[in-house]
Every structure is written in C-alpha cells, then in structure tokens.
C-alpha cells in the first residue's frame, strides 16, 4: 500500500511552516498538522524578525529558498541595519514585524502551496515500528501514516504557564498543549529536557506617555531580507520604538516581593532551565544588583491592535505585583496591562540525539526542528525547519543530505552546536558562537548558499540566473578595478595606483572614489558593496579562510560508523561517555565536544591509525 503522505509536519510555527513548504515545494505530498489553524506562524513573544546574527540567519534562509525573509519584508513595521558602524561581518538586519499581517501572509502562502494539506488536530503519539517512524496518532486515536515525520512542536510539549504561585498546564496564550507526546517520545528511548522561557507584559498603547521615552526610528534607507524582491514598505512611515529605564522604585518593588515570583519561591517545583541571555527582570536585578537601572524597549506589535510589547521586562511575578512594577516605569504610571507576563516551562529533546541532518539517531525517519530541539527564537526555529524539510525530501529521493559547515552558514554553526555540544538552556544564536563569522556575512549569504538552494530545488531557474549574473558582475567589477589606474596624493607625492590596491586602505570608500574620479562603472549598489568588502577586508578574509581550512582538514578525518569507543584504551571516562553519546562523524566534530580534551583526540587518532589505517 502506498502511504497517503510522504511527510507529516507536526506544528505550524516558524519551523513547521518552513519544513512543510520545503517538502511540498520539492514535490512531496505533505501534511501539516496544527492545533489551531488561526495560530499558524504567530509570534507569541517579541514582535521582531532578525537582530544580531539572527538577521543573517534570515538571509541564509532566503538564499536557500525559505520563506521567512520574504514574509518579514512584506509585513514589517520598521527596518534597521544593526551594527552599521562596525565592520561588514557583524551587520545584521532587524525588522519590527506586524503580529497580524505576518502570520496572515504566511498562512496564505501555505494555503496556496501545491502538495501541501493543512489539518487541525492534536498529535499525541507516533506510529513506531522497529525503531522507524511510520506516522502519527492523534488525540482521538486516529492514525495517519507517512514515510517521514517532522516534529516542530515549539513550547507545546507538556507546557506549564507560571505566574506567581500558580502553575497551569497550557500552551502560550491559553492554547492547548500536547499532554502525552513527550512521554511517548521518552517511551521510544529519547531523553527529555525541561526548559523555561518567559515573555513580558503587553501594555495598551494610549495609556503610555511616550514623551518620557526616547524615540527609536527605523533606518532611512531601504533594506530587504529577500535576495529576489525589492522593498515594498514606506520608508517615511515606519513605526517607532521607544527606550525607557527602570527606576529605583521598580527595583524596590521587585526586591520586596521577590519571594512571590515563581522562580524565587512562588513555586518550588521548577526544574526548567531558563536562558541566560533572556533573564527575567527579577533575575537581572538580583544578579546585577549593583546596576541602578535596566533598559527597556516599548515596541509596537501591530498596526491593527493596541498592544505595546515591553521588551526587557519578562517576569513571573503575580499579576498584582506586575501592576505595581509597570506603574513604576517612566511614562507608564497609568498604563493598562492587556496581557500579563508569564514564564513557560516545556519539554524538549536533548539535541545530541540528532544527526547533523536533524534526523533522530534512535528513531529512523523522525526529524525534529525548532524549540523541541532546545533552541529559542523564530529565526533559529525557521532555519532548522527548512533544513529538516530539505533533508526529509532528500532522504525520500535517496540523495545526499544537506549539512552546512561552520564556515558556510550560521545555520551550520547552530546545528553543529546542537548536535555536538547539546544545550542546557534555550539556545540562541550569537555572533560570538561563529568562529568564522567574517565569512558569514549579511552581504554574501547568497554567494555562500544559493548554489545549495538551487541544487536541492528550492531556487528556480529565474532566481538562479539572476544570481549567476550577480556573480559575473562581481568578477567583472573586480577586474575593472584592477585595471583602472588613478593618481592619488601619498605623503606629498603623487603616485599612480590601481583602484583595487587603493581600496585596501580602510579610509577609502568606493562610491566616493567613483564620484571623485568620475569612474565609468555601471554596477548596482549591492555589487559595489560586495566588491568593496571583498577587497577591503581581503587580508582578514584570507586569514579566516586559512583557519577554516584547518578545521576542514580535521573534518576530512572521518570516524568510522562502527567504532567501539569501549575498545579504545586510556580514553578519559568523560570523553568516552560523550563520544559514545554523540558519535561524531569526524575529528573536527569530536574536537568541539566539551569534555573531550586534546589528549583524548590524540588517543583517538592513534587508535584510528592503528585499527583503520587512517
């Protein structure tokens, strides 16, 4: 009997949407199951897409043929290039996203996607035979079969909402959680991890006195995440954000009521580990007690409703204390809280149980992506969804999987970190996690990844042709700059020099040169920018590429599948345990496992040489 579906995706958040689209666009019959169709692609936390490092992930998603960037471009409220005064490697886009129009845009894309069906239901179990997944079982015991299942369940696995001393089994915003799926995963042999995150209160816009806050506007230059489309937003009609600070009064209220917070004694059964980069306001005040004030942002959630998101103020205090806290803030003395802040605890699987393809090591044909893998953030979720969708499809087609390397994409860094190092807290991408970040820039996302997108079939001919022309133009411009000589003043002498050489000076700007010397170069701004970066930072880029080469060399040293770590003498027991659990594919990956020391690697290498003649 032929399966009805080739791929079932469980959950329609940012990971689920990308996974379902990738699989369906690759012509595989796909079913997307969500507990609530109206909640597809919603943003339960902050109203923004992108940010430092995350913005580059969105560009990478777009370069590979994913949807997130285009959805954000089409619906944004404000756009900003972060770190624009720093070097090119750390520039990153952030859009304030509209929480109404973004999900709507995504829903329409999904509804109109060929090969994709959407079903409203709650998945509570999997069909597993001989360690291989064969489909899903719904809460009414209906079975739906498929070749591959991708779980993108977000924070819905046995989730509890924590406010003060109350614990309520519920998904975000009073939605239904999945009650049994994580227990069932445990039953099939998976290790389950309990994580925690939080969200701040939402305030009614017209009860805030914005005159006491500092206004933060978007950039007055057009940007897009997308590599294919022009910006469509109105540059002069972007929505502002506002900056305020907590007061002495805020600090006093929090310290006086600390034991009422869920995390500080309000509840004594909390096991979930919260993220260090996203602490609650009470955490910040306790851990950094010498700081007199903390920064908060007021961010609009949508053009179509009134909520203002109070970024930096997530808390698990009881509602009456939240009222007091909010009213202690400048401009919010009379503010009305529309939604109270809460913390949420949820189950996730230990990500080291996955292969770098995002397929589970224990259950064949089961893929996971997003918060279920221990990450945090819409962008982190979306990129995993995309990779899981692509690899599920490639597996159906009996093709080599797509595994991005650490020197190719933030996505590669993220997945490698997850499957190699695991995580104990919700994992957020940071530029500091990428050792080759100079190679992983906003500007070259397409140069790095579009080829892969085309090869897997998510980039169409037209997009690919456009990309080829861009590459061609970059080459042509570089040659032209090498051949164009100009005369410049240098230490009281006039010297002739090629523009190419002259550009290596950090103080020289190509566009100014073009104007000054009336150079006849007919190229678009993105080509000029790309070429300028490549030339100006060529010294650094070469250096980082050399480093990357060293890593790639170790990546070539494959570790055989059948290696028995118990047979290797002298391995430290911690290293032995970690190696057995993670089963790295190669020496480079083994080197990145925490607790595996260089000495263990020498022993491993000696063993490989001895028994596998490597």
């Amino acid at each position, binding site marked *: 009997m032929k399966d009805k579906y080739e791929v079932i995706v469980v959950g329609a958040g940012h990971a689920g949407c990308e996974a379902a689209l990738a699989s369906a666009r690759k012509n595989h019959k796909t079913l997307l199951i969500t507990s609530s169709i109206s909640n597809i692609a919603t943003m339960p*936390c*902050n109203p923004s897409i992108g940010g*430092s*490092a995350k913005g580059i992930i969105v560009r990478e998603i777009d370069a590979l043929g994913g949807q997130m960037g285009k959805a954000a471009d089409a619906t944004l409220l404000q756009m900003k290039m*972060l*770190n624009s005064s*720093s*070097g*090119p*490697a*750390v520039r990153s886009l952030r859009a304030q996203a509209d929480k109404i129009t973004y999900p709507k845009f995504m829903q329409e894309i999904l509804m109109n996607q060929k090969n994709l069906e959407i079903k409203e239901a709650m998945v509570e179990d999997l069909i597993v035979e001989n360690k291989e997944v064969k489909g899903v079982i719904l809460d009414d015991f209906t079975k739906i079969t498929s070749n591959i299942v991708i779980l993108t369940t977000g924070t819905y696995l046995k989730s509890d909402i924590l406010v003060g001393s109350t614990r309520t089994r519920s998904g975000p915003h009073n939605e239904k959680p999945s009650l049994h799926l994580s227990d069932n995963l445990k039953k099939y042999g998976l290790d389950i991890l309990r994580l925690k995150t939080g969200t*701040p209160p939402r305030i009614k816009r017209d009860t805030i006195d914005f005159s006491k806050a500092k206004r*933060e506007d978007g950039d007055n230059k057009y940007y897009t995440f997308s590599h294919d489309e022009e910006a469509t937003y109105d540059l002069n009609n972007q929505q502002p954000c506002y*900056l305020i*600070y907590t007061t002495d009064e805020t600090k006093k209220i929090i310290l006086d009521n600390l034991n009422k917070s869920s995390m500080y004694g309000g509840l004594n059964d909390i096991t979930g580990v919260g993220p*260090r*980069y*996203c*602490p*609650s*306001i009470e*955490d*910040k005040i306790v*851990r*950094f007690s010498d*700081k007199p*004030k*903390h*920064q908060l*942002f007021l961010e609009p959630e949508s053009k179509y409703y009134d909520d203002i998101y109070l*970024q*930096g103020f*997530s808390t698990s205090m009881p509602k009456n204390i939240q009222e007091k806290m909010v009213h202690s803030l400048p401009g919010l003395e009379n503010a009305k809280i529309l939604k109270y802040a809460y913390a949420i605890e949820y189950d996730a699987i230990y990500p080291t149980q996955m292969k770098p393809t995002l397929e589970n090591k224990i259950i064949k044909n089961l893929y996971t992506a997003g918060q279920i893998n221990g990450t945090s953030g819409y962008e982190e979720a979306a990129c995993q969804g995309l990779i899981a969708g692509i690899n599920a499809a490639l597996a159906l087609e009996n093709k080599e999987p797509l595994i991005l390397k650490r020197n190719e994409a933030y996505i590669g860094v993220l997945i490698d970190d997850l499957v190699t*190092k695991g995580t104990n807290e919700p994992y957020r991408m*940071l*530029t*500091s*996690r990428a*050792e080759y970040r*100079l190679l992983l820039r906003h500007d070259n996302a397409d140069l790095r990844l579009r080829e892969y997108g085309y090869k897997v079939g998510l980039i169409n001919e037209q997009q690919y042709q456009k990309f080829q022309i861009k590459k061609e133009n970059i080459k042509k411009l570089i040659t032209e700059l090498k051949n164009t000589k100009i005369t410049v003043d240098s230490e009281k002498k006039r010297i002739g020099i090629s523009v190419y050489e002259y550009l290596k*000076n*950090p*103080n020289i700007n190509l566009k100014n040169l073009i104007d000054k010397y009336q150079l006849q170069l007919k190229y678009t701004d993105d080509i000029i920018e790309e070429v300028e970066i490549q030339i100006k*930072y060529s010294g*650094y880029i070469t*250096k*980082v590429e050399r480093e990357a080469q060293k890593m790639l060399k170790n990546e070539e040293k494959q570790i055989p599948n059948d290696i028995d770590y118990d047979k290797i*003498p*002298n391995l*430290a027991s911690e290293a032995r345990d970690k190696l057995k659990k993670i089963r790295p594919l190669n020496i480079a990956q083994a080197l990145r496992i*925490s607790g595996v*020391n*260089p*000495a263990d690697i*020498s*022993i491993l290498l*000696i*063993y490989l040489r*001895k028994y596998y003649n490597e």
Partner: protein
Amino acid sequence: MNDTIAAISTALGVGAISIIRVSGSNSISIVNSIFKGKNLQQQKSHTIHYGHIVDNDNVIDEVLVSLMKAPKTFTKEDIVEINCHGGIATTNKVLELLLINGCRLAEPGEFTKRAFLNGRIDLVEADGIMNLINAKTDISRAASINQLSGKVSDLIKNLRNKLIEIITNIEVNIDYPEYEDIEVVTTKTIKPKIEKIHQELENIIKKSETGKLINDGIKVGIIGRPNVGKSSLLNALLEEDKAIVTDIAGTTRDIVEGKISLDGIILNIIDTAGIRQTDNIVEQIGVEKSIEIIKKSDLVLLLLNNNEPLAFEDKKLLDLIKNKNHIIIINKIDLEKKLNINEKVIEISIKNNIGIDAVLEEIKRMFNLNKIETQDLTYLSNARSISLLKKANENIKSAKENIDNNSPIDMIELELKEAWNHLGEIIGQTYTDELIDELFSRFCLGK
C-alpha cells in the same frame, strides 16, 4: 599502545647512582623476573625493596627497587624504578636485561608523553618536566620547578583574562547593539589596554629567552686564522675548574667540544673542527668553515694575533661577525705588537694566563648573566611555548597597527581572539565555550 617501556632516566656518567625507570602494565612482572629478593608482585604500592638484579644466576648489580602502582604515578601506569649502584656498564646491562625480558626502549620524552596522554599533566607541566629532566644546573632546575608549580599558567591565564575582558565587551556590543547602558568599546578605548598587554608579552618573551638560555646554554664558537691560539684558548677555558664535561660528542647535531658552567649558565663550546691538528699540519679552515661556525653560535670569539699585522683573512672574519654577538680577542700580547685595529678588544696572553677572566666577565656582561633573577623564574623556557608567545605577540602588534589604520573593531577583535587562542595553546586550553559563559556572567542582557 600500552606496552611497557624502560629507559635510563639519569644522565649517564654523572653521579654515583643511576635510575632506570620502567612504565606500563607489565613493568612489575618484568622487573620481578630479573630481581632476586622479595616477590615484587606481592608488595604494596609505593614501597622500596632491596635486592639484586640477576642474569640467570649471575648477579649484575646490587639495587633498590621502588614500586609505584597505577594510577597514582607519574604516567598513571605501573612504574618501577631501579636504583643501580654500578657505573655505566652495569646500568646498561640492567637496561639490556629489561629489554630482553619484554620492555621496549622508551623514546625520548615518552614517559612525559604518557603522563600527558593519560591526563596526568597538562601541556605546560609536560614542558616543565621535560626541562626538569634536562636541567643540568641549579638555576635551570629552579626554573623547571617554578614552571611546574603553575606560576607560568597563572601568568598566561592572567593575560588571557585581560584579553577576554576586551573580547567579550566587543562581542556584547555586537550581539546587543542597542544596549545603551553597556559601555561601547571603541578602538580608542581599547588601545591603551592593548598596549599594556603588548608590553607584558614583550616582557615575558624576553624573560623566556633568558630561560631558554638557561636550559640550552650559550653556544660559543671560536674562530681565527691558523695558529692564533684557538685550541689554547679552548684548553684555557676548560682548564678553569668550571669545565663539566669534555670531549663528549653530544646527542645534538652540533659537536660540543666542551662545556663550562659560568654562574650556572652553560657555555657550549662548539666544534671548531681541525682545531687539534696544530703544529706542523697546516689547518684547512677556510672562510666557509668559519661562516658555518658563526651561523651555529650564539656568541663568536674571534682570535687575532698581536704579533702579526691584520691579514686579509682577518678583515674578512671581522666583517662576517659584524651582526653577531661577538668578542674580539687579541692573543699573544707577550710578544711584540704588530697589530693595529680600531675595535673594542680584549687583550690576553694565553701562554702567561693573562686576561682569560676578562673574557669570561665580558660574556657575563653581554648576556646579563649577573642579572638573571634566580628567585623569580616564572618564564617559559621551551621553544614551543616561546614560539606561541611570539605568535600571540604578533597578533597584538597587528591589532595595534590596525587600530591606527582605522580598521573596524570586529576585525581587530580577530587578532585578539587569535592571540587568546595562542596563549591558550601554551596551557593546553583552546577554543571552548568560555567566551559565551564570560559574556553572560559579565553583562546584564535580555529581552
């Protein structure tokens, strides 16, 4: 992998006792098989036993045997140390017996390598132990002990801390660009900090090179035309009661004619081939040979004859040593002065034993030997560590240059990170999640 290794672990010919060390899972049984006394396999760990080493029924030596069972040993393997009382010949015979009975001769440094591979010591300690083994003089030994105590690690860790402070601040600015209450680091604000790190590194490197000197000694070459008294000078230097070893062809590539301990620093007087073919046989040391000696030496002693005018060959040699540590010595001042030279010289008469001390004093002055602080030898004395220090220093230097060239701060950070990694390699710590942990413990961030 886990075979049993053996080697003589004391310098041959020095001292009354020589120790043979055996390490590996069969060490106790192998030693027991050539030992006449108690059954070593039935003794407790960390005990010493008196007995004889026998070859069949022939007694080879009277010995003390130390038993140390894994894991509380230097290599974390079973170790037996045999204290032999005999000279070189008997010690060699005992070793030979061990090899016949199933030991393998250890490669140089293999005990330390095992200690390192078995996780007993970190890299710095491993280097330190290597130096301890090689320590030939007291100062050198003091340096080795300091290195073992973790003082070096502290020094490096301290520098790394300073670097990571700057790095995390830069990182946090990048990852949280809109946090106004976090100090924004600019190239201007980090410049003085980087300059300070640069100075400290330069300091450690300087000290380290002195350390290398202490361990390896100073290579001294003697050059000059035939019959100026090169061999007499060598003998005069060696005849001072400072001579340690003479006429031993060392294991190094350079043939060492003799060693002198000068205030605890070893002078290795290197091969001046043909120097002993004196008198009637005309020496064939051409300029080429001299060039070779000059290349090998840390210090060149050029010997001239007071009794002859400056020859063409002398001028050539003077020219060759211009950019090298050198001392020009005029010999035969007991004879009529026919030499005119416009350089700083030391006048001696080897025949009448005049001026030899002045030469030694000058060497001490040149290498600051009087100023070596034997109390605080917290430097790294190993070539590998020094090269890593120098690499780190190069990174810091380019960081400084790039600041002056207005490079963006995240590019400058590349150099700082690399320096941080190089320093980490010295103490065996490379890229880990340290950085991320640091980021979150130092700054208050959140959404």
